[in-house]
């Protein structure tokens, strides 16, 4: 510490080197996300006859460190859609704030309240929201400043049919009866496709079946994805609205298989 009165309390230059003032400049090259830092792993979702089930665990990892174990990665939009985020958590939080603004704007633009709908949350449905997010993500990739996420949007479209779509950090967007991001696309998607290979299959699934499939997939992901957690959020979107549970615990786990696999647990040979 510097003891001279004119610089009391500051690090001594002869010890730490001269202060690098370039950190204080706000001119100079713009910084962009070059790689994700704190990340969330898979988000999975499947359509059923009258809506969509979507789930993601509550973990935010810092590399291989399980850094934050209570991070909610599902977000409700206008009481009618759910957005699930995989990838960088700070970019997720940026998008979350951005969607808050969008929701407020939409509520202002929405029709004046009527006796039937005293509070109109707006008419931006999941399909509209997905289109908007695709444009946002694609714009950011064009600026070489990507938002490092893969996003699932679950809800209903203009015809009140179940809607499920994905968009990633390059603005690539697609839909499918079931979707999964990250590890989920390799581990959960094959399981979900067994139950909903086509739109017709998905339209025959009941809500209970869909929830069971998703819970089963979350369990498989916890078994095999090292950056996953047994605490997760799950949401069901239907015409009636969104039911979001944010502190679910994986149930009926069985680690019996571990005994037969070398490298798991304690083995003597």
């Amino acid at each position: 510490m510097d003891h001279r009165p004119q610089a009391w309390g500051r690090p001594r230059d002869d010890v730490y080197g001269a202060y690098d003032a370039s950190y204080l400049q706000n001119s100079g090259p713009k910084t962009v996300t070059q790689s994700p830092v704190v990340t969330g792993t898979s988000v999975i979702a499947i359509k059923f006859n009258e809506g969509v089930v979507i789930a993601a665990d509550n973990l935010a990892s810092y590399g291989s460190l399980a850094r934050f174990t209570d991070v909610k990665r599902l977000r409700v939009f206008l009481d009618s859609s759910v957005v699930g985020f995989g990838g960088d958590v700070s970019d997720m939080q940026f998008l979350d704030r951005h969607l808050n603004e969008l929701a407020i704007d939409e509520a202002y633009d929405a029709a004046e309240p009527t006796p039937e709908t005293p509070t109109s949350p707006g008419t931006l449905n999941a399909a509209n929201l997905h289109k908007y997010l695709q444009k946002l993500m694609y714009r950011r990739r064009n600026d070489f400043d990507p938002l490092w996420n893969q996003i699932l949007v679950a809800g209903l479209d203009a015809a009140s049919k179940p809607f499920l779509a994905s968009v990633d950090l390059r603005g690539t967007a697609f839909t499918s009866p079931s979707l999964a991001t990250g590890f989920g696309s390799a581990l959960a998607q094959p399981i979900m496709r067994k139950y909903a290979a086509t739109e017709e299959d998905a339209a025959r699934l009941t809500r209970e079946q869909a929830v069971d499939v998703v819970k089963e997939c979350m369990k498989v992901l916890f078994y095999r994805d090292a950056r996953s957690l047994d605490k997760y959020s799950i949401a069901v979107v239907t015409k009636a609205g969104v039911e979001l549970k944010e502190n679910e615990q994986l149930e009926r786990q069985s680690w019996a298989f571990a005994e037969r696999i070398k490298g798991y647990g304690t083995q003597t040979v």
Partner: protein
Amino acid sequence: MAMFSQNPIMNGPSYSFNDAPRVNGPEGARQHRFDPYTDNGGSTLAIAGADFTIMAGDTRLTSGYSINSRHHPKLFKIGGTTADQKDATIVLSVVGFMADGEALKERLDTICKMYRYRHGKPMSVKACAQRLSTILYQKRFFPYYAYAILGGLDEEGKGAVYSYDPVGSYEREQCRAGGAAASLIMPFLDNQVNFKNQYEPGSGEGHALQEVARRPLTRNEVETLVKDAFDGAVERHIEVGDGLQMMVITSTGIEEILLPLKKD
């Protein structure tokens, strides 16, 4: 006391963090640069007939070895009055990086809609084709990574197919295959549509060989040809499959056909 003299020479510490090694490794060691492109696979095909054009594409969307979607169309109607494109007369197919392909489609469609708003008539395929080339070339140094094919009917009512590279080189052709399986389908098309390497049996040998007479194909022939071409491509290319989307452009409008392909 010398301790408070603050004279570094007299009283300098015998340690320093000044030259501590940087935490980050050497430049480029953990650098993970953002690649703005991916290849979403898939294949497209267009054949011009005497008074029709058939455009086709598979509906699989991949990235790497993953199938993202089994139903993601690559064919788009362009320049209709309304969003459902009911009265459109032009079809655009794109393959490569789908986000770019779809952005390209929306650019072209908006331009066609503004043209209609200003001039009160739809854009001709020829004009649309030239405009598409300009759009692609405008992004010469950050290209749309998309292989586009534009199909419609020309001023005389004949089938017209225009094919493009990602930076806007284009030409009008009789037929063209694009995308992942282009190199598998194109030779088949040369042989079947343009009758390349087909000779009259028994017409002689060497220079005496007579080429089979070229004739315009009928709509039914072309539809079968398209299906055969894609069945072949599905067999030999992992990025092609799931569904076949066809659009038949005639003077009465655009007919859309969906057929299944192998899903493996």
